[in-house]
């Protein structure tokens, strides 16, 4: 089994899928000549040529719409947004066209397209370039939204996304691109819509997705030293959501914390907290806690930037509140 970085895992998935299906092509800003702003598409222009690896102008609405049209016409585009911050310009194409064409045409049209790029806070990037926009996509029926937190899931989910006949948005992360993890050498897919128990436990359930998974697992390690067995559930797929896996875990533990980097208002995390509160009501021994980004535009000052994001201390604090234990 090879140890790959997250960006290498995505690159391998793109390479394999482009080799497998000539309808698959990649486009976006700097994906070709520059090998990708974050080097995810490294070597693909050289291997597949400019017909299938297209550099685009700095016009997110334009090339996203082009991708939607190409998908409707029968190709399987992968549109790379340099970051999700810039994808806000393309919201109309994703929300009003990609997500709706299948339903509005009574199934006559399908839009097999993947939109992907880094999402969420990175570092020293201030308010406009450091934000988790997961809820923008997860809010929209007709889209599938994936948030792989490991190289292996990044590989397996991107491949599933490319093969899916629906529009799929993938949330990656600038910080995660260099994180390493084991990825099996043999080709595999990770099914869309399945959460994964990243660590088993019996005392409380911590639900998370994307980059915070690593921090949550660290918190679980720290809790284990105090004898607290936290179960960590990685959503992987935000839409569709693997509700049953979440409830099964909370039924076992009776306590639930949701951790995410996004703002807390109308977020994926607050939605999950509501679902758990509603569907596990009878067996909850404490309120469902949400550890999220703070409800502010990301500050530029580094100390404030850190304070505005989830931290180990904030997670442990929530654990204290749901376990009614001051000694943690």
């Amino acid at each position, binding site marked *: 089994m090879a140890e790959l970085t997250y960006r290498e895992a995505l690159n391998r998935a793109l390479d394999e899928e482009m080799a497998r299906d000539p309808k698959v092509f990649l486009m976006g800003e700097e994906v070709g000549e520059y090998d990708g702003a974050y080097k995810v598409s490294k070597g693909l222009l050289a291997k597949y040529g400019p017909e299938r690896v297209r550099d685009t102008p700095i016009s997110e609405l334009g090339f996203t719409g082009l991708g939607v049209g190409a998908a409707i016409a029968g190709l399987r585009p992968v549109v790379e947004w340099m970051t999700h911050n810039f994808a806000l310009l393309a919201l109309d194409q994703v929300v009003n066209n990609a997500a709706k064409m299948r339903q509005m045409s009574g199934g006559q049209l399908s839009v097999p397209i993947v939109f992907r790029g880094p999402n969420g806070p990175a570092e020293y990037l201030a308010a406009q370039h450091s934000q988790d926009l997961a809820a923008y996509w997860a809010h929209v029926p007709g889209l599938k939204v994936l948030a792989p937190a490991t190289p292996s899931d990044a590989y397996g989910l991107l491949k599933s996304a490319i093969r899916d006949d629906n529009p799929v948005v993938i949330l990656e992360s600038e910080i995660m691109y260099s994180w390493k993890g084991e990825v099996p050498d043999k080709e595999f897919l990770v099914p869309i819509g399945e959460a994964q128990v990243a660590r088993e436990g019996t005392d409380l359930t911590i639900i998370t997705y994307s980059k915070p998974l690593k921090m949550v697992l660290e918190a679980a390690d720290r809790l284990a030293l105090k004898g607290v067995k936290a179960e960590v559930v990685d959503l992987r797929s935000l839409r569709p959501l693997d509700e049953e896996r979440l409830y099964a875990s909370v039924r*076992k533990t009776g306590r639930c914390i949701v951790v995410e980097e996004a703002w807390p208002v109308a977020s994926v995390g607050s939605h999950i907290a509501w679902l758990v509160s509603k569907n596990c*009501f*009878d*067996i*909850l021994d404490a309120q469902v806690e949400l550890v999220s980004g703070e409800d502010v535009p990301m500050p530029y000052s580094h100390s404030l930037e850190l304070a505005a994001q989830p931290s180990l201390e904030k997670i442990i604090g929530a654990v204290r*509140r749901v376990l009614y234990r001051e000694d943690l």
Partner: protein
Amino acid sequence: MAQKLMMIALSPTMTEGTIATWKKNEGEAFVAGDLLCEVETDKASMDYEAPTSAVLLKILVPAGGKASVGETIAVIGKAGEASVSLNEPVPQPSREAETPAVEKESPIVAASSETDGSPIAPPPHGAPLAPVSALPSSPLARKIARELGVDIRMVRGSGPEGRVVEKDVKAFSEKSSAGAFSSAVAAPGEASSPPGEGKVLARPPSKETPVSGKRAVIAKRLSDSFFSAPHYYLKKQILAENLAEARAAVNAKRESSISINSIIVKLAATALLRHPEMNVFWKGDRIEQREVIDIGLAVALPDGLITPIVRDCAAKGILQIDAEFSALIEKAKGKGLSPGEYEGAGFTVTNLGSFGIDEFTAIINPPGSAILAVGAIIKKPVIGPDDTILAARTMTLTLGCDHRTIDGAVGARFMADLASMLEDPFQALL
């Protein structure tokens, strides 16, 4: 997956139930809301409705069998599914607080069919009485309390702002069952004779009857009331001539006679309307005063006392009150009263006159704050208008009040008004 069907608390005070009849057979399918079985609780016979749609795989507690709240009474699941894994012996009432692993996975608990949310049992030893909804407690704590038959209002919460959480209920339950054990161990007559004392003379064994569910509830509620509400009593002898004559005159024109109690209840309702400060409930940190006048009437049944209630007596005439009490008493004799028909009286009337009792004191029926004990109508020498002594029918009333809510002068004013109405029922019309 096969699931356990548990006995649930079908009334707030129920801790144990007897299956009267199963309405579904093993192997029979049912849908949510179907009647599964009838359960005799501490006070009434209740319907157990299916919480979900499934097939009744196995009945574990047959008709006539008893089960504590939280015990498994049947296994349900899909047709043809094996119930073997769940088909274990019925746990005994004194089982451990720990719930079996299977139960934890997917417990089935139907909502109990509550009608009146007012609290029934006063809290122990000065703890504030609060309605269940006002008490901070976690859903899991409430669920476990329901399964273990623990009154969650008795449990001291250790969470933020006194929230009762899982561990509090479990600790409480363990403590109380430990207490039950220790008192059982100290049963009399088991101590061995000291050496040299010789033989203890054989005496005929005393008869012991296990405390029925209903008897246990009566014991608990009345103990709680008597030991937490400071009672005081106001006694008044009234002239019952007018009352007795009025009743006789009315009954002479009727096929069925009106009970004296219905007249007393109506006049009490009229007096309560004029003294709303009597229609009050002690809530620990506040006093609730109700506008609607719900009056309970203590009724002796062979297996114990029950107090059916006529709601909103101020808005009802004597005939209607009488008809409602007759119907409720008939229903109670068939063990058919639902909790809404006997819980939450603001005032209670109890009458031992038919036994010839001159006068007596009664224990307040919670959650109300006062109870009127009525003695027999007895002919006595009374002082007439001109200091003459004449024979007249009299009746002695004793009003028991909770001093936390009703001061002596308030009770006395009410009593004076009520007495004047009973002596001269026309006063009630004024």
